[in-house]
């Protein structure tokens, strides 16, 4: 259904200061079409401020946040270029979902006939005549997503879209974002939870204290920043440690158990061969990586000390 041109979001040396506080401190990155880009950072990292500058709500102290090379106010049909949900609760509680969407649609020059199908798309078709104030947070989230999508925009921006959704809603929102990206749209969503990123994003932009920490694909992020290790369990832990040491592989016993050990810089294939060669019985052999959550926490905590 989506037919317009791909549009790139770009932050050019973006700075935003509030008095003495620097919320965004020289951010430069681009968000490309066709993939889901996750905008990750702890609370107060400057994510929302950056998103607001893309939408022209806040004026950068210096630098620029452009949509398809233009500031949003300069684009001819803003609603067909960008759809956004910053805060799901940001809707007049006394207005019905249908009236709310109709007002938004008309403002962007979109036919009212898009209202009903868009409400259907987000699963609110049956409650179009109910006031938004009576909605649960999850339903408001869906209404916010409908508000973002009604103009069939090339770019969608969601601030913390998974907050307040139940597990089924989270799965729905994830697959929606993937579908939107697959249609060739530029999809940017923010979160302070690495776990949400792992399951949803193809590309990561990580910020902390308003500065860029990483801008790379999720797979590159994983291979570059996490180390693989092999975990083995055996009834003969000293025997396996000895055999691995003879084979030149570094291994350490897992202090939290009596029969497990961690092997760094090797593969399950190799550890299995070493164990077989030494005649040591294995009860488990698996490979694991550091959790991204840990990597993220380490990244942001070292930054904090540096600052």
């Amino acid at each position: 259904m989506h037919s317009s041109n791909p549009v790139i979001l770009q932050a050019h040396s973006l700075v935003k200061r509030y008095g003495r506080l620097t919320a965004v401190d020289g951010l430069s990155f681009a968000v490309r079409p066709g993939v889901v880009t996750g905008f990750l950072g702890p609370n107060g990292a400057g994510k929302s401020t950056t998103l607001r500058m893309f939408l022209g709500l806040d004026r950068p102290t210096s630098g620029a946040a452009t949509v398809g090379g233009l500031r949003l106010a300069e684009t001819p049909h803003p609603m067909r270029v960008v759809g956004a949900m910053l805060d799901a609760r940001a809707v007049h509680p006394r207005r019905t979902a249908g009236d709310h969407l109709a007002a938004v649609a008309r403002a962007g020059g979109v036919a009212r006939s898009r209202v009903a199908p868009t409400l259907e798309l987000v699963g609110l078709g049956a409650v179009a005549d109910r006031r938004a104030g009576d909605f649960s947070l999850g339903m408001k989230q869906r209404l916010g997503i409908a508000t973002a999508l009604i103009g069939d925009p090339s770019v969608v921006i969601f601030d913390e879209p998974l907050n307040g959704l139940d597990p089924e809603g989270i799965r729905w929102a994830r697959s929606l974002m993937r579908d939107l990206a697959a249609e060739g749209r530029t999809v940017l969503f923010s979160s302070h939870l690495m776990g949400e990123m792992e399951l949803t994003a193809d590309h990561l932009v990580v910020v902390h204290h308003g500065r860029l920490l990483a801008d790379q694909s999720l797979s590159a992020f994983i291979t570059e920043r996490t180390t693989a290790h092999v975990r083995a369990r055996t009834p003969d832990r000293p025997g396996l440690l000895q055999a691995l040491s003879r084979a030149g592989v570094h291994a350490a016993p897992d202090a939290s158990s009596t029969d497990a050990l961690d092997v760094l810089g090797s593969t399950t294939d190799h550890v299995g061969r070493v164990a077989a060669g030494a005649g040591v019985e294995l009860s488990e052999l698996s490979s694991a990586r550091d959790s991204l959550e840990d990597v993220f926490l380490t990244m942001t905590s070292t930054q904090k000390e540096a600052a």
Partner: protein
Amino acid sequence: MDLLASEWIKARSIRTTWLLVAGTVVVTVVVSLLGISGLLADWRADLPADFDPTGISFKGVLVGQILVATLGAQTFTSEYATGQIVTSLTVAPRRAVLLATKLAVTALVALATAVVTVACSFGASQAALAAAGLPTADLPDAGTVRAILCAVGYLVLTAVLGVALGAITRSSSGALAVVVTVALLVPALAPGLPGLVGDLAGTYWPTTAGQASYTTAGAGGVTGSAGLAVMAVFTLWTTLAAHVTLRARDA
């Protein structure tokens, strides 16, 4: 055109809009009639020499203006209070256009409200005066027609002023405080101010001048259409201030 339609949907889909419209009509008429009922008690006593049967029909505007200003203000303040403004500005990022649209829709709603309010208040008041055997306004008289039109114009300007104050203060209570101060407090206190300040404030203060425009009494100072013009200029400046504020501030 699309944005006008959007703002119209916003206005008509909120019950507050219609409560304020109905409230403006009812309160204005009731207060005007109460003003006359005060006269009825001692109508045989000498009426003041400058008794103005037209002006007295619009006494209720003093209270009605607060409601109509709130009608204007809430087009912005309700959006800031709920956060809806973020969506509105994302969809229509040109803030001057959004302000102009809200002004236009509010002016139209206020115009319809003002016509009904003024017609009802004038009709009911004249009927009450006639029933009591008091002097009534002379409708074909140019001064009376002018006063009626100025009363409509004054209410519309007050609503427009409300929109501007809503955009500047972003808060219903803030806007209301300014409206009450400008429209009620200063006109009430001005006569007590000393010397030139009191004279100026009692004559050229925009709402005082505006309120003089819908009477036929020539009490000196700024009267008639000139009074409404003073109010219009003040409203224009406030609207420009709202425009500058909207452009300069982060949403």
